């Protein structure tokens, strides 16, 4: 009989799980208690959290740095617009069907770019995003540079749209945050963490590093694309520069670096900070972005763990515990 047992859940983790579930239910119920403006804000915030968490999974666990995730935002948003507007599919169904596009696209992109070393991989993803923006600009089916409008949404009442937006926002958070949490707690999570810390050592322990990287690249492409489709459904309009906007990469990197890379908690903290910073200081335009850029720089230089890493140095109360701890059994009732 074993004298040790593995403990993963903590009190803080249980409390956070209850709060997280309550928040998701609150989001689903938004049409019955929240204003139009609040719903729009929550949808936007959910998209920031999702895109940032996907970048966090890539860079913080997969060891893959990308500055071109806007490629997947744009591709799935456009896929949704085409399916709904051009082919008359129900737009809420089109959000999910359109996710096939980033999944399919991620395979050749990774296949081509993984041949590049670390930093060059990142710039390579940017080239791909730029190339896709130019393709969209040149494609008559997407109405070129003029972009598309989601006029089919007029067939739904304001309340129906509010219900759909709230459900989509909740689903987005459930898939990206809940999915990451489950993945990190599974045996794949151990493999991912091992790979992040040392890919060579992880491979020597039987982790198929190449395959795992490809899978995480595809999964995060789909998650990022989901956020893109939800975001542009709320916008009702899409153009190539907005769909493939490098600002998606900026905000993901800022959120993850300031909040704390390699933790789900950090993404939540960073996303809330970014959301309010954008709201309060966005009007200062360039000066605001200078501060944002310098903060990202400062985090990379002096503050690698971000706010969550800083906080965790003193308080060990993870909201999303993924660590396994070995506890020695007391007595003989083991």
């Amino acid at each position: 009989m074993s004298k040790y047992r593995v403990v993963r859940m903590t009190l803080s983790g249980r409390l956070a799980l209850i709060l997280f579930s309550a928040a998701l239910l609150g989001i689903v119920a938004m049409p019955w208690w929240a204003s139009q403006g609040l719903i729009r804000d929550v949808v936007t915030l959910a998209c920031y959290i999702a895109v940032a968490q996907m970048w966090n999974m890539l860079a913080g666990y997969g060891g893959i740095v990308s500055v071109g995730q806007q490629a997947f935002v744009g591709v799935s948003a456009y896929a949704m617009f085409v399916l709904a507007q051009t082919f008359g599919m129900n737009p809420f169904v089109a959000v999910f069907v359109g996710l096939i596009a980033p999944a399919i696209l991620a395979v050749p992109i990774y296949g081509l770019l993984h041949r590049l070393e670390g930093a060059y991989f990142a710039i390579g993803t940017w080239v791909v995003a730029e190339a896709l923006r130019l393709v969209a600009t040149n494609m008559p089916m997407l109405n070129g540079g003029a972009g598309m409008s989601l006029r089919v949404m007029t067939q739904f009442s304001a309340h129906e749209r509010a219900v759909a937006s709230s459900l989509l926002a909740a689903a987005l958070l459930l898939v990206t945050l809940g999915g990451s949490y489950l993945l990190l707690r599974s045996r794949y999570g151990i493999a991912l963490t091992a790979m992040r810390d040392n890919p060579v050592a992880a491979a020597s322990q039987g982790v198929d590093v190449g395959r795992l990287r490809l899978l995480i690249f595809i999964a995060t492409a789909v998650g990022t694309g989901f956020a893109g489709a939800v975001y542009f459904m709320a916008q009702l309009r899409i153009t190539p520069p907005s769909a493939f906007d490098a600002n998606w990469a900026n905000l993901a990197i800022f959120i993850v670096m300031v909040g704390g890379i390699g933790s789900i908690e950090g993404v939540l903290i960073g996303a809330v900070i970014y959301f309010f910073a954008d709201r309060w200081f966005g009007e200062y335009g360039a000066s605001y972005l200078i501060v944002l850029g310098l903060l990202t720089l400062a985090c990379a230089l002096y503050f690698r763990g971000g706010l969550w890493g800083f906080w965790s140095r003193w308080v060990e109360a993870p909201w999303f515990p993924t660590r396994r701890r070995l506890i020695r059994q007391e007595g003989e009732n083991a």
Partner: protein
Amino acid sequence: MHWIDGIVQGVLLGGLYAQYALGMALMFGVMKIVNVTHGDLVILLALIGISLANVAGLGPWAVLATLVPIGAAIGWLLQRALLNRVVGDDPLPSLIATFGLSIALQNAMLVIWSADTRSLPGGGIQQASISLGPIFIGVLPLIVLICATLLTGGLDAVMRRTRFGRSLRAASADVEAAAMVGVNPRNVYAAATAIAVGILGFAATFQAMRSTVAPADGPFQLIFAFEAVIIGGLGSIWGAFTGAMILGISQAIGFRISPGFGILAGHLVFLAVLAIRPQGIFKRKS
């Protein structure tokens, strides 16, 4: 004749891209890092040059002579203050640090110079051309190409033949072993970045003379430099030059097919090279 003209114009355009790409190839070869502000520094230097021309009344060649040492100083400072802290096996810190700096730099330029596009008056040289039969060759692009060739040859000779070049190659091959035999990596790195950004002084002057610059243009220059380096083969100086030529020709031919297709043609050739010959045109498989 249409297509031959396209190739000629592409080679001339490649001369400019080679000046972007040399520094990037040098920095990646020596330190294995990518400086995301590479393109923004071209724009920063160009805007400084344009302001110098307006305020101090400098001609284009005087601007060039000023921008190269300014660029070298900026590069040295950038490496000393920032990049030396993030050089290492993990690509994340250097990439994120320079990515943040790039956003800050673009917006700082926007505050100082506004979003207007500007260019550097060249005193008529922009319009001058010589005709070779039916093909016209601009005098300015020809000067750019000659400059790029001399810079590439010069950098290659420095790398091969001088004591400094030897320490660069040593630091690039094995930084710890190099440090053991008396090479100070921090000084070598600072010198490499100073050279890389100094060369951007040429690129900035010529870019501002032949076309326009605006604060948000940097990322495009970064991408062109990157594509040239990858097409040519990582870390090879003449490879970067050749890659720049191929990129220039692809874009020039793309523009002749359709004006909206030029830049995209460059991206597609880049992706095709990755698919067919990922080690680049020049580098042998290791």
